[in-house]
């Protein structure tokens, strides 16, 4: 009799738990709790800062994965776009003291235009050449950041104080919470895009241009869309970066940065959100949270790059689908192992051979 009741409850619960958003919302809640702990001094502030940065890098990596993992387009211009985002907020919200809404509008507008331009270029040029062109664009942006001092304060870097909202400075705690919120929202948006006609169209385009076109998927529309999305993600991440770190210097926005994002996406698994979060942790987080506490790496900080290099080589050699594949394979192995052990136990204990 109670069976009906529990079945009902269990059904609802499992539907909630199996919903693709569930895990990520849980992650957001956990992050909020960790943030609260950091505020109370139970988690070191520097550790929390690195968690914040990881979230921001994850947003960039998610945008990049739409480009690389879904649309199959290679770009090395990520750093430039993120840098642009930092300067947008630094200039409009910081130097000019404009309200945040205007900054956001300008930043999104800039991202869309820039993304559309690159997307347009991608119609003509593909593969490695596209990567080189976007790299060139990023380097141009870096030079612009260096020399266009009225906007960026040049090589000395632009410092940002709290920005104003409703006539009051926004406290750091609110910024931290906003980062978590945007992080979760971006993940949900990405999930929605992936599981919709647009995501499928991108994948179709990656598999074969001609098959995609014959199914009514216009290359122009979807290439542009992919680049605009990646750029918007990057610029949003730039805004968050500036609000969080409060300092932006052109040197940060160089090829290194773009390559690290690429590495994170490749190491983690270009088509899985969980994989990308994992990749960001491996490439950025491991260094910031774990390795820096090891004396050897504190003495030779650049050695961490050797480690990520080795990691990239190993992953691309043995798990071309990314670390997430390794985890999936491991999970399958464990399930099979448990099943096998159980079978052997039953055979021993009950003499069954099924």
């Amino acid at each position: 009799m109670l069976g009906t009741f529990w079945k009902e409850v269990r059904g609802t619960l499992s539907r909630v738990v199996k919903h693709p958003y569930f895990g990520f919302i849980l992650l957001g809640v956990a992050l909020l709790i960790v943030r609260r702990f950091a505020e109370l001094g139970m988690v070191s502030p520097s550790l929390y800062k690195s968690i914040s940065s990881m979230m921001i890098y994850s947003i960039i990596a998610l945008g990049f994965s739409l480009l690389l993992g879904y649309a199959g387009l290679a770009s090395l211009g990520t750093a430039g776009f993120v840098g642009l985002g930092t300067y947008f907020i630094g200039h409009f919200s910081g130097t000019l003291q404009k309200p945040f809404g205007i900054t956001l509008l300008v930043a999104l507008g800039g991202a869309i235009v820039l993304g559309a331009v690159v997307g347009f270029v991608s119609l003509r040029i593909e593969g490695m050449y596209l990567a080189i062109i976007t790299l060139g664009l990023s380097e141009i942006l870096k030079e612009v950041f260096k020399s266009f001092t009225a906007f960026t304060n040049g090589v000395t870097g632009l410092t940002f104080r709290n920005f104003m909202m409703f006539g009051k400075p926004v406290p750091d705690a609110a910024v931290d919470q906003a980062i978590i919120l945007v992080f979760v929202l971006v993940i949900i948006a990405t999930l929605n895009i992936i599981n919709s006609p647009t995501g499928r169209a991108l994948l179709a385009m990656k598999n074969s241009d001609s098959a995609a076109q014959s199914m009514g998927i216009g290359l122009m529309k979807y290439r542009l869309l992919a680049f605009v999305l990646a750029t918007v993600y990057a610029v949003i991440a730039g805004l968050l970066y500036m609000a969080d770190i409060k300092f932006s210097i052109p040197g940060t926005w160089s090829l290194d940065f773009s390559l690290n994002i690429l590495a994170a996406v490749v190491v983690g698994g270009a088509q899985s959100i969980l994989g990308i979060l994992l990749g960001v942790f491996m490439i950025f987080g491991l260094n910031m949270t774990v390795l820096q506490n090891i004396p050897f790496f504190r003495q030779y900080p650049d050695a961490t790059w050797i480690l990520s290099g080795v990691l990239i080589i190993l992953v691309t050699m043995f798990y071309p689908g990314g670390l997430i594949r390794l985890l999936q394979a491991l999970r399958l192995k464990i399930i099979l192992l448990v099943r096998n052990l159980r079978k052997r136990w039953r055979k021993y204990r009950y003499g069954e051979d099924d």
Partner: protein
Amino acid sequence: MAKMIERMLLRFRLSGLGRLRSQKNMIESYLPIREEIVRQRSARAIQWMEFLHEAKMAPLGNAAGRPTATVAAAREAKVQALRDRYRLKEKALAQTRKRAEAKGPLSPEAIAGFEESGRKLVESRDRRIAAILAPSRRSSLSEAEALRKFLEVETEQTEILARKKAALRAKEEKHLDAIRKRAARQIAHLDGKIAALRKMVLERHPAQTGDADLPENVLLRLQNLSMRFGGLLAVDNLSFDVKQGEIFGLIGPNGAGKTTIFNCITRFYRPTSGEMFYRRNAVEVIRLNDFPVHQIIRQGIVRTFQNVELVWELSVLDNLLVAAHTVYRSGFFAQLLHTPGLRREENVLKAKALGVLQTLGLSAYAYAFPYGLPYGILKKIELARTLMANPRLIILDEPAAGLNDKETEELAVLIRKIRDDYKCTIFLVEHDMGLVMDICDTVCAISFGRMLAIGTPAAIQADPLVRAAYLGEAS
């Protein structure tokens, strides 16, 4: 100038017509899904009612020594589980004994011990089963009184339950009725609009036939088509008609230019010269040369490729949804937010895709990933994909390549079935002469881009030129 404006207007109106039709289609196909949702919801409500009824009756029944049906069933299940558990225990005992025996002959005490354990197991099982089945009376009332009360409450409650159920059913019926009426109203409204627009098109654009005078029954006309790759003339001044509703076969030796012709029709190649006309619907003939590649499917022309071109990262069902790309109406922001509208569309199209898969006997693969499936299945999935976008002309490039004889026979049946069920025209290239001669209504033979002969399969088989160039070579 005036003619151009008129053609633009016509195209605008016809695309409006198409939109209205697809809206109507969506409403019609969503109706059964919606009805099912309502039915399931009320079924759950009834389940809850029964649950509450049971919750009220079960303690009374226990007190009266009259377990209700559910309680009895639950006890039965418990007993069954107990029996299963004891059977395992007995097996384990037997196994232990066997292992002991394997070491050497058992002493009488050991045998007695095993037998004693076996007896104990049976005893304890029977005791526990009896405990489960025994009426549990925790009531202060006497048995007769409890029984009287139980019967009284039961009649009353059963009546209430029946009344509630009837009310719920009535409500459900009303709800369903309202849904159906609303759909009917919307459809009637759309029908009115469609009829009006159609009438207007027919009046304003009498016999609007673009640039060519296509006879009523011709779907596709190639007119002096030529395609030159550098020094190679892959298609040489070719003209033929594909009639509505026929299965049209194009044959020719390797490198004859068959795929090139398909690529010209679907606009992957720009023909060096020549025109391609296509009857889009009863009143409009379009010049395919004017359309970009990705617009071709919107005109109702769908193609497959000579090699399998599926999206390997997506399930078979999702592959079919990719092919329905042009049917979706939701814009980017609806997709970003996963609005109910988009979800509804996905439901409708998923149902449609499952239907198509069932027609082709692929239901078992709906949620599988295409990677690693047998080649024959992949080819069928490609065929299924062409049916998702409401095609009028399906172009198949060597559908039987790589299939064995049995699969090819199945394919022949399938192609006919598709033509009849989906009321479309099929234009195929094929090397398998058996298949071509079996299913095609008209066959066109080409060699080095030039037409050899066109006609019925029998005529083509008898044609001396074809025999020399093609069949002779094959034999």
